[in-house]
């Protein structure tokens, strides 16, 4: 009995791709594009840059997949590529002195490509609460950008589908205790900056 699309493991998909079935690549995109985007957005805080990085991640994977040996899980490999490309883009932006232009006007209903912006919709809140939340969101995202990169990367990965400390350690090639410490320091630093 042949497996349905949903039942294919990543290894099955990669095997088919290597044998010439290029259409199965869309399965990997469906499974992992959100996570690639989230990593990039968390590092870059720009919707435009995050989409560019997410696309670049899969272009890289598409090119390299025929030679993928499976020494690490596909997802780990993908996370590493996403983090590396996001890191490179961050450095490039920093070297160019790019300014972050953050808009929190958009809501999730307007979730389109209209440009950078944080998309938060909380219709159950009063306008005052919405404004307060938006200010908090804006401040949090700005301060995350000001964290030391090692702290920021660990915290961002933790918030990509609640990635485990073990997986984060694998992606960033660190010891478990180091990850635990970096995440705690990132949070503590944010708390000090936001509550001072």
């Amino acid at each position: 009995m042949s497996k349905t699309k949903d039942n294919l493991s990543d290894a099955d998909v990669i095997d088919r791709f290597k044998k010439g079935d290029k259409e199965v690549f869309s399965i990997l995109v469906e499974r992992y594009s959100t996570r690639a985007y989230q990593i990039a957005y968390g590092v870059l805080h720009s919707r435009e840059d995050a989409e560019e990085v997410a696309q670049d991640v899969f272009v890289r994977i598409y090119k390299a997949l025929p030679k993928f040996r499976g020494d690490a899980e596909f997802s780990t490999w993908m996370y590493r590529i996403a983090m590396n490309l996001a890191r490179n883009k961050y450095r490039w932006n920093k070297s160019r002195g790019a300014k972050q232009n953050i808009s929190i006007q958009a809501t999730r209903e307007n979730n389109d490509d209209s440009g950078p912006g944080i998309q938060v919709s909380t219709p159950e809140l009063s306008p005052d609460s919405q404004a307060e939340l938006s200010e908090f969101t804006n401040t949090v995202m700005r301060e995350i950008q000001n964290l030391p990169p090692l702290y920021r990367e660990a915290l961002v990965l933790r918030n990509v589908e609640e990635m485990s400390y073990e997986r984060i350690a694998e992606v960033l090639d660190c010891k478990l205790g180091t990850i635990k410490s970096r995440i705690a320091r990132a949070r503590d630093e944010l708390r000090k900056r936001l509550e001072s």
Partner: protein
Amino acid sequence: MNVSKSQTPECPSISDLSAWHDGEDCPAVDKHIQECRRCKHIVDFFGRVDQTLADSMQPPSGLNQRIVERCTQMSTTPL
């Protein structure tokens, strides 16, 4: 609610509070959080930051399609 932000010497470390917030099993921290408003305030803050990140990292619609189109175009273009 104004809560003093300083922890006392009896409070768990920030590292332990952060790990507890992420699901690490620690009965001592469980008990402490119920009794200490300062530490409760800190882990509540961690939760707000996580929620903020989760809300703001949602991808735009059509992302998958654009990725697949770009990869497909690449595969049909001679390198």
